[in-house]
């Protein structure tokens, strides 16, 4: 006790200025320690608090990146008929953005109903062919075509991508009696040639009328 009193006698402030400085030093030290302890506590309790080299704060950086694909649910808020068509068709598993590309920015804009906005990118053949061309490895349940043996060069000329219904091929309107084979007029040499994408081997009348007889059409493309 006496020793402590001796120590105090050596360090005690002896002037007003010294006392004020000592007080200030104690207060500053206390504040500094408190800030350190509080910041440490905040980081310990909130692992994702932004702090440059905190390892897990990085998770927050990843979690708050901007997204490009809005998701089909966002499309359904405005484009109800199209979404309903797709939901009832074999394309129900296909997301809007599978064909129409990323629309995150479009959704973020939230154009008012009726406002003039640029139409969506209408996908070209490539979008259809990406799934529907005949490729080794595809499940048998998938409807595939050989695109070089298919009839029209533009998929959407016949097929509605939402309902997947196809318009029927042109129906033969003229009488068939007393006429030569279809290929006579509609072959490569004929005056009204068939589309070049028709299968080369199918040149007999039976093959033609499979699709072009009145009321006939490729059944598998009318929604199944």
């Amino acid at each position, binding site marked *: 006790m006496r020793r402590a009193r001796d120590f105090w006698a050596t360090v005690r402030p002896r002037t007003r200025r010294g*006392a004020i400085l000592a007080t200030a030093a104690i207060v500053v030290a206390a504040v500094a320690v408190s800030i350190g302890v509080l910041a440490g506590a905040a980081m310990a309790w909130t692992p994702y608090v932004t702090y440059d080299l905190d390892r897990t704060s990085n998770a927050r950086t990843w979690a708050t990146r901007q*997204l490009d694909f809005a998701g089909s649910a966002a499309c359904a808020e405005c484009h109800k008929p199209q979404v309903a068509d797709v939901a009832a068709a074999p394309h129900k598993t296909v997301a809007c*953005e599978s064909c129409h590309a990323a629309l995150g920015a479009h959704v973020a804009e939230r154009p008012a109903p009726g406002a003039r906005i640029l139409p969506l990118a209408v996908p070209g053949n490539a979008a259809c062919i990406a799934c529907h061309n005949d490729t080794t490895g595809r499940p048998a349940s998938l409807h595939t075509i050989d695109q070089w043996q298919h009839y029209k060069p533009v998929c959407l000329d016949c097929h509605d991508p939402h309902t997947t219904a196809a318009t029927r091929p042109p129906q033969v309107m003229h009488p068939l009696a007393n006429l030569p084979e279809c290929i006579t007029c509609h072959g490569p040499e004929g005056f009204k040639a068939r589309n070049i994408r028709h299968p080369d081997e199918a040149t007999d009348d039976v093959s033609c009328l499979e699709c072009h007889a009145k009321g006939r059409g490729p059944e598998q493309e009318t929604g199944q």
Partner: protein
Amino acid sequence: MTEPLLPTDPVPTATSEPVDPALLVPLTELAPAIHAASVSRRAFLGFGLAITGGLVGAAVLAKLTPVFADDSPAAYPIGSSYDPATKQWTFIVDTASCIGCGMCVAACKEENNIPEEAAYTRTWVERHVVTADGTVYADSPEAGINGFPPDSTAPGAAGQPIEDSWFEPRLCMQCANSPCTGVCPVGATYKTPDGVILVDARRCIGCGYCVVACPYGARYLVPAGETTPSGIGGVADKCTWCYHRISRGQKPACVEICPVGARKFGEATDPEIATILAERAPKQLHPEYGTEPRVLYLGPSVDRA
């Protein structure tokens, strides 16, 4: 000590000589200062109380603050309550329904700002072809981003009769027993409480240990350039299960975009996922690696093994 001491300076006490009383400041003059500088018991306890109160206050504030504070645009709020500790995500890949269109690879590249060269990719699609003699050939031209040519491009597979074939989408397995997080010499790759393994690009030194440690080949080194997922080049990168999408309640871009639903994502308690887990028993791909992959597979990829 050649200069004379100022009258107000403290007097050396080591000296044995009696102190000149004239040098000492009268005690009455010093009393208020001593009172201010010394710490009374009350003041000491007060300090303690203040610090304790501050700590408790900080803890309460931390608990009340969302883990991921929401400063994203109004159209895409992060669930203000997204807490990684409460989520256990499940990813299921159905190789029986994959059609190899490659949309998942393209969507991933766009969503995550991956460099456009095919060698840099977080996900890819392989085509496995079994020939009549039982050999399995795999090809993945340009990681499958442009789909697949009609016939396998694997050397040796051309022209052989094919017995079976299927597509196998691949991505980071987010292994429960992950070698990549173990080998990182700087602790740049780590596992979040929801099980997703991420890379801190600020810490990564680009040594590539994790790239070779991954038995599933799910990692790559991002080249320096303008197109980088994290904004930093020359570092390791990998699939995050679109961490920025799942934190907002969205599905990863590849799952969202898959036209045949070959990729499924959700919590194990989600009805769709729970049904698959209960009825179709998805399996790990290459469980023999021992890394406990958390992406589960259905279809020929695991059924034929």
